[in-house]
C-alpha cells in the first residue's frame, strides 16, 4: 500500500500540520494579548491553582512509592543510602514533569477543551467575531499562556512534595540515616538534572496547552463533538507527552 494514500496517516499528518499552523496563529497574538494581563492571570488561576490539590496528593503518593520501591531494591545490595538518589533523579528528570503533564491534561486540559468547545457551540466565538473581536486573541491565547505558565509551577510543586514523600518513607519509616540519605542525594544530583526537568515541563506545557486549545477551538459545535474533542485532548496530549519525554531524555543524555 502506498503510504501517502493511507487515510489514517494522512489524517495524522494533516492534524500535525493544522496544529502547527494554529501554534503560529497563537504565537503571533501573544504580544497583543499581553496588553490584558488580567485575562492571563485568571487562566493561570484556573489551570494552575485549581490543579494544586490533585498535584499535591499525587506527588505525595508517588514520592512515597519511590521511597518504598527504592528501599526494597537497594537493601538487597546493602545500599539503602541510595534511596534518596533514586527519588531525586527519578522525580526531577522524569516522574515530576511527566506525571504533572498527564495529570494536567486530565484536569486542566479537558476543561480548557470543553470550555472553548462549549463557547463555540453556543455561538459565543461567532458573536465575538461579529463584534470585531478576534476570539483567538481573547479566548485561546490567554488560556494557552495560562497553561504554559502553570505547568512548570505545578511540576516544581509536584517534585518538591514527591521528594518530601520519599524521605518520609526512606528516612522516617525505614530508618535510613538522614545524613547519608541527603549527602548521597546532594552528590548525585547536578544542575544538568534540574534543567532537564525544567525544560521538559516547559515543552510539555506548550504541548498539552496547545492540544487542549486546538481541540476546543476546532471541535464540532455539538454536544457529541465537544465530548469527542475532550477525549482527543486527553489521548493526544498523553501520548505526545510520553513520546516527547523519551526524545528529551535521550537528548539530555547525549549532551551530558
Amino acid at each position: 500500500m502506498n503510504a501517502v494514500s493511507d487515510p489514517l496517516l494522512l489524517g495524522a499528518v494533516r492534524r500535525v500540520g493544522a496544529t502547527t499552523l494554529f501554534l503560529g496563529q497563537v504565537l503571533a497574538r501573544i504580544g497583543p494579548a499581553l496588553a490584558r494581563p488580567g485575562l492571563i492571570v485568571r487562566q493561570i488561576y484556573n489551570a494552575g491553582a485549581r490543579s494544586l490539590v490533585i498535584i499535591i496528593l499525587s506527588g505525595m503518593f508517588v514520592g512515597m512509592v519511590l521511597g518504598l520501591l527504592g528501599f526494597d531494591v537497594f537493601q538487597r545490595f546493602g545500599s539503602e543510602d541510595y534511596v534518596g538518589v533514586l527519588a531525586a533523579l527519578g522525580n526531577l528528570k522524569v516522574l515530576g514533569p511527566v506525571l504533572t503533564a498527564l495529570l494536567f491534561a486530565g484536569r486542566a486540559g479537558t476543561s480548557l477543551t470543553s470550555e472553548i468547545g462549549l463557547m463555540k457551540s453556543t455561538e459565543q466565538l461567532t458573536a465575538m467575531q461579529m463584534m470585531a473581536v478576534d476570539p483567538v486573541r481573547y479566548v485561546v491565547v490567554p488560556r494557552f499562556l495560562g497553561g504554559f505558565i502553570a505547568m512548570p509551577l505545578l511540576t516544581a510543586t509536584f517534585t518538591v512534595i514527591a521528594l518530601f514523600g520519599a524521605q518520609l518513607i526512606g528516612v522516617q519509616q525505614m530508618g535510613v540515616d538522614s545524613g547519608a540519605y541527603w549527602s548521597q542525594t546532594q552528590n548525585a544530583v547536578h544542575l544538568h538534572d534540574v534543567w532537564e526537568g525544567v525544560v521538559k515541563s516547559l515543552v510539555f506545557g506548550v504541548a498539552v496547552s496547545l492540544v487542549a486549545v486546538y481541540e476546543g477551538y476546532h471541535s464540532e459545535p455539538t454536544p457529541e463533538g465537544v465530548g469527542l474533542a475532550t477525549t482527543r485532548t486527553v489521548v493526544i496530549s498523553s501520548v505526545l507527552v510520553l513520546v516527547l519525554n523519551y526524545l528529551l531524555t535521550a537528548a539530555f543524555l547525549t549532551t551530558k
Partner: protein
Amino acid sequence: MRYAIGGRAIFDGLDVTARRGRITAFMGPSGTGKTTLLKLITGQAYAERGSVRVFGTEVATLSSRDLFAMRRRMGMLFQNGALLTDLDVYENVAFPLRAHTDLPESLVRHLVLTKLHSVGLRGAARLMPAELSGGMARRVALARAIVMDPDILIYDEPFVGLDPISMGVICRLIKQMNEALGITSIVVSHDVHELATIAHDSFLLSEGRVVASGTPDELNHSDIPAVRQFMGGLADGPVPFHFPASDYRSELLDGEEASR
C-alpha cells in the same frame, strides 16, 4: 447571487435589498437558509457567484481588517443571545467598548447603564448569563449589540422559544431601536405575525429564491400558493409534508419479504 454547500445550492439567483433606516424581514420555512443569508451579509461566508454589498462595498473584497471595521458598524443579535458565559451582564455589554475603545471607566459605566436601561434590565447588571431567562438574555444581547451605536442591526430568529410577553417586548424593542436610533434593521424569522407588526418590507424565501416580497399586508393577501401556505401555516401546499422517499407500499412490503 448563488451560494452552495457541498454542491447543494442554498441560494440560486437570490436578489434582495434592505433599505437604509427601515426594518426588513426575511421569512421562510426552516432550512431555507435564512441564517446562511445573514452569514453572507456579515462576511462569515462568501457567495460563489454574484455580489453581496453592505454600505455600498462588496463584502467579499474586504481584507480582514476592513471586514472587522465593517462589523463594528453592525450589531448582531444571535438566536440564543450568545452572551459570554464567564462575564456578568454588565461586563457583557461593556465587552465591545473595552475591546475597541479606551474610554474612561465612568463613561463605559454610563454607556452600559443607559443601554441596559433602554432594554429594561439596568437592575440585572450584576447577574450572570446563567441566571437570566431566555427573553432577558436576548435583551441583554440587544443592549450589547447597540452599545457601539451601529448603523445596522441584524436579528437572527429573535422570537424563537420566547413566551408571548417576551415576544411582545422584543418586538417593541426592535421597533424602538429602529425609530429612535434610525438603525437599519434586518430580521430573519419565521414568526409571521410578529414580523407583520414591525416590518416595513418583507421577503419570503423558499428553495433559495424569493417567492414573494412586499409589505406584510400584501403578503397576507397574496394569491401565490406557497405564500398562502406559509402565511396561513398549512401542512399541505407547494411545500410537501413528506420528505422525498421511495414508494411507501413497496418499502413496507420489501421489509416484510426480507424478514421472512
